[in-house]
């Protein structure tokens, strides 16, 4: 959790706790305020960790749509973007394409990694041959300042070394903890070595989008769902996390068609991978 989220959660939770603490002052409204207070607390945490569930639930129950521009709107399901042109409806939906977290081992050539890279073009062409509708695979990347990234890594390494030395000098050192800390230090050191070797730190976001056409919103939306389900199946071969995107992230992804955001803005909307 980043610092901003901690500030938001703690400030709002604190106020709700103060409200609940004053329950004795509210007379007949004491119980309703208590119930609403607990509900508000749950809602805030739900909005923080699962707003892709909460936001569409609210818009669907209140039948709220969002107009992104003169021709584009997001229906109440918040699951796609609809464009109405010449009496036809075009629905565009999105899927994540996140790499599963794992550790690179750069000290020695990883046979599996080279084999994966060699297999990638064939897998990609098989997907193209088996897909009979329009789609787009997108990768947004940005490089970070090398010095800032390196200082960050050195800070991490320093902290891990401090934890390691504390554990080693402890009265009852835990071997598992020592091994784990040494492993983390190796990971950070490998990254520092790669930066020193000339590689640039790069952040990226990958996602897949597809478009379907129909004579009604519902038809376009249903065909889009079939298309996205097909893409989820075929892209599994790449060992990526493919999940349909719903909610406010769709609004931000739509604007990426027209202009790219700076890293600060992108990391506010999405978590990046590096």
């Amino acid at each position, binding site marked *: 959790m980043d610092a901003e989220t901690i500030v938001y959660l703690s400030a709002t939770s604190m106020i709700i706790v103060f409200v609940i603490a004053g329950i004795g*002052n509210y007379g007949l409204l004491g119980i309703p305020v208590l119930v609403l207070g607990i509900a508000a607390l749950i809602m805030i945490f739900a909005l923080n960790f699962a707003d892709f569930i909460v936001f569409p639930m609210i818009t669907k129950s209140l039948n709220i749509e969002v107009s992104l521009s003169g021709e584009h709107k997001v229906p109440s399901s918040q699951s796609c973007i609809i464009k109405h042109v010449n009496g036809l409806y075009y629905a565009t939906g999105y899927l994540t394409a996140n790499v599963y977290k794992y550790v690179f081992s750069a000290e020695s050539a990883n046979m599996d990694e080279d084999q994966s890279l060699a297999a990638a073009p064939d897998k990609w062409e098989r997907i193209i041959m088996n897909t009979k509708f329009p789609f787009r695979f997108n990768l947004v990347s940005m490089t970070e300042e090398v010095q800032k990234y390196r200082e960050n890594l050195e800070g991490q390494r320093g902290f891990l070394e401090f934890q390691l030395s504390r554990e080693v000098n402890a009265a009852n050192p835990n071997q598992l903890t020592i091994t784990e800390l040494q492993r983390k230090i190796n990971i950070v050191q490998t990254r520092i070595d790669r930066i020193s070797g000339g590689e640039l730190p790069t952040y990226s976001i990958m996602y897949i989008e597809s478009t379907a056409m129909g004579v009604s919103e519902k038809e376009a939306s249903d065909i889009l769902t079939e298309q996205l389900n097909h893409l989820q199946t075929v892209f599994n071969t790449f060992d990526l996390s493919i999940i349909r995107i719903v909610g406010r992230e769709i*609004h931000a992804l739509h*604007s990426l068609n027209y202009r790219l955001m700076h890293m600060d803005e992108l990391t506010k909307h999405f978590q990046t991978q590096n």
Partner: protein
Amino acid sequence: MPNTRIMLFSIFIGVALVLVVATYIIRIQLLDGFIAILALVVTIGAFLTKNYTYLFDAVRKKKGNMLIISEKEAFTLAPNGNSIVRREGDRTYASAFVKIPVYKSGSEMTADEKGDIAKLFGRILTLSKNPVKISSQLYMINRDDYIKKIRESLNQAEDRYRELQSLGGGEEHKTEFERARGELTMWRNLLDNVGKSHSRSLIIYAMVSAEGGNDEEAGNLAYQRAEELSGGIGTILGIACSVANGQEILTFIEPEYMIPVEIVNERLRQKMQG
């Protein structure tokens, strides 16, 4: 935007705090209860500023159940014709697109070449300090135009074949004759099979953006970045890239350009017959 968000959060939290304090000072039970409920609502509003500030103005401009983020066009073409312009609030952004014509299939590459092409694309990601979006787009094409091109190529191949046939079956022309016959067979097979399914095209492109004081400034800066990127990608991959202009740009942005009118008409005809 970050300043607006921080300002709104501060205002909401401030108001919520004042309301909470009021419940401890004012000793009228029912009134305290209503103030407490109002404090809870304002606190939720404070938390919503974290991710949903852009919707606050949309709520103010709403029409019925439709929240209005914008009713203007999503973008316009820049004066230089080589980029698109989008205005968000008082800021002007322009984006330009670089076409990356990669025609080699994985079936033509060795295992080493396949691994290399993946690594080369990795180098492209670190070419620019600014964010870059690389997209691979599969879209439907107008089959009539495609068939016309195949017929033209077939006619040329037939002319060449007849010309070589009329020269006799001498040894000096044998290789060329075999090649001409193979090419003729290939175009005939392509023409026979093209009608069996919708025709598709795959294109790879890169997108860069720039911010400027007006349309022209932003457009020129975006074009300049695109030109630099085009040169860099061309050098890495050994191909001739170019910046897209005019109508070409629409293929990368607008959903209706991914599905041509011919397919739309065919689907409508099928619906009416069905």
